[in-house]
């Protein structure tokens, strides 16, 4: 069967959309501005002993529903922004928050996540439910109790994220440590090829801590650091000092996605979803060895930017997934704020901190605020676009980039997925 191709003017994205011969829409530009994030709920984050992830999800969801001016009865689909809830790295019951909140959902999608990338995969699923008319208001919620878990394994003499080990993992008998070993391999290679230094990694940590000190919600609020603090912090896994490594957090975040026409009637200002995209490093593992000095940004960025119809200079604020300081340097290069290899000097020049020309991780990021996967990044983007950032608010922020990363390819010792999400107010 062959269909004739045609163009049609799309009033929402204000573009001519090409309807291809084999697919309904060929290039995704119809996606722009059709869906909105309308409610945001973030629990207290940090160290919350005794709070289970499902309780945190319930609380975040309750806050998000209230923030949107909706009631639980309005929510007709739910997505759990969580990695492998059924038996992977953070196994637990997967029906919890919809059932506990009594949401009249048609569908509860468990565990859309891939490592730290949970939010954008959740949004992708939500927009499909909305497109198909299955749902009107989709609740996305996720939570972690990683800090509490790390305290339990400490009693057994283990540290870090040993609780994340899953079947078939490669490196344990050799002393590989998720995820510091994996990202450390990237960092060392970047240092070897481009001369990146530990002090340059430290400049990332210092800039993000400056942002955190402007954010009363951040775990490290009120605890400023200097480059000397970074250099004198213990080496955990060379080349990473302690201050190169993100926090582990207990906490939950939820938000609601709906269609643009419904969003207009709600009490909070809608945040429009302009575009999203994904990339996977495993696509060319192992033969393309340059993928140890880049992240899989290229396809993610190209798809998201094409949908959104934007260029890099249109982005007012960047909320990068920053599990380690190197991730920030890699992304500054891979998105094109500087040349490959120039990320270290670029950060040292002061571009990313408060007052810099590209504000990065304005809430303090995973390094200095809290780590709930890339829910952290998306939540901060929403806060900035709504103008609710208080002391850390970037003036005139209209377009935000939020990224995600994760999904261990254990045998290749790398995290695979990268996601790009473009939002606007």
């Amino acid at each position: 069967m062959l269909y004739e191709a045609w163009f049609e003017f799309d009033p929402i994205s204000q573009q001519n959309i090409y309807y291809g011969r084999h697919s309904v829409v060929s290039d995704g530009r119809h996606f722009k501005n059709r869906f909105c994030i309308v409610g945001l709920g973030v629990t207290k984050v940090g160290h919350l002993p005794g709070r289970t992830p499902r309780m945190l999800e319930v609380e975040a969801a309750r806050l998000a529903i209230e923030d949107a001016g909706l009631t639980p009865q309005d929510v007709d689909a739910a997505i759990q922004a969580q990695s492998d809830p059924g038996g992977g790295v953070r196994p637990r019951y997967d029906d919890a928050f919809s059932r506990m909140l009594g949401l009249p959902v048609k569908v509860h999608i468990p565990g859309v996540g891939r490592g730290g990338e949970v939010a954008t995969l959740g949004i992708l699923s939500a927009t499909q439910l909305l497109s198909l008319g299955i749902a009107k208001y989709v609740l996305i919620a996720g939570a972690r109790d990683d800090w509490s878990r790390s305290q339990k394994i400490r009693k057994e003499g283990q540290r870090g994220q040993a609780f994340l080990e899953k079947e078939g993992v490669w490196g344990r008998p050799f002393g590989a440590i998720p995820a510091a070993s994996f990202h450390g391999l990237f960092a060392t290679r970047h240092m070897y090829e481009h001369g990146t230094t530990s002090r340059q990694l430290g400049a990332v940590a210092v800039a993000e801590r400056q942002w955190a000190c402007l954010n009363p919600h951040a775990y490290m609020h009120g605890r400023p650091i200097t480059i000397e603090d970074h250099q004198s912090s213990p080496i955990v896994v060379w080349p990473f000092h302690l201050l190169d490594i993100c926090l582990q957090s207990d906490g939950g975040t939820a938000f609601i996605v709906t269609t643009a026409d419904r969003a207009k009637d709600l009490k909070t200002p809608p945040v429009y979803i302009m575009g999203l995209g994904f990339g996977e490093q495993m696509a060319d593992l192992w033969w393309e060895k340059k993928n140890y000095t880049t992240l899989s940004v290229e396809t993610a960025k190209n798809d998201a930017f094409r949908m959104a119809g934007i260029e890099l200079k249109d982005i007012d604020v960047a909320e990068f997934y920053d599990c380690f300081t190197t991730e920030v340097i890699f992304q500054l290069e891979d998105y094109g704020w500087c040349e490959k290899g120039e990320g270290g000097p670029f950060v040292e020049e002061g571009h990313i901190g408060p007052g810099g020309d590209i504000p990065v991780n304005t809430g303090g990021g995973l390094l200095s605020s809290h780590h709930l996967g890339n829910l952290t990044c998306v939540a901060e983007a929403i806060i900035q676009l709504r103008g609710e950032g208080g002391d850390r608010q970037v003036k005139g922020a209209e377009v935000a980039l939020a990224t995600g990363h994760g999904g261990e390819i254990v045998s290749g010792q790398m995290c695979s997925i990268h996601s790009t999400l473009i939002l606007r107010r």
Partner: protein
Amino acid sequence: MTWNKPRPNIPEDMKLFWAGIKEHKFVLWHCKVCDAWYWPPACCRNHPNEPYMGNMEWKEASGRGKVFTYTVPHWAFHPGFKDEAPYVYALIELREGPLFPSNVIDCSDEDIKVGLPVEVVFEDINGEFTLPKFKPLK
């Protein structure tokens, strides 16, 4: 000697690899059609594959390569590594092409560097299993 570290986690489709290592044969995933090498197992990317990768086999490789990149854990994340840290955990670029993650032993954290030539050594653990590690090529 009691083994107080994690044991290898061996999925069904990696059993022949670990059996080869136990016999001190450094086997990699090899294509009988075009002589390409892989690790970990994958379909050969150069041409169509037979059902269930019938064109692929575990075949002994050189066991030599060079350090592609590395980390040096200083903190013992598992109590079994307490006396060993700091140690080198590296990605070895094998002569056949694939990248292989393992320890580089007999090499201090000052001597380790990208490009260092290494060869495989086999560490037998109580007749139970064998770990393929690497040491600097003299």
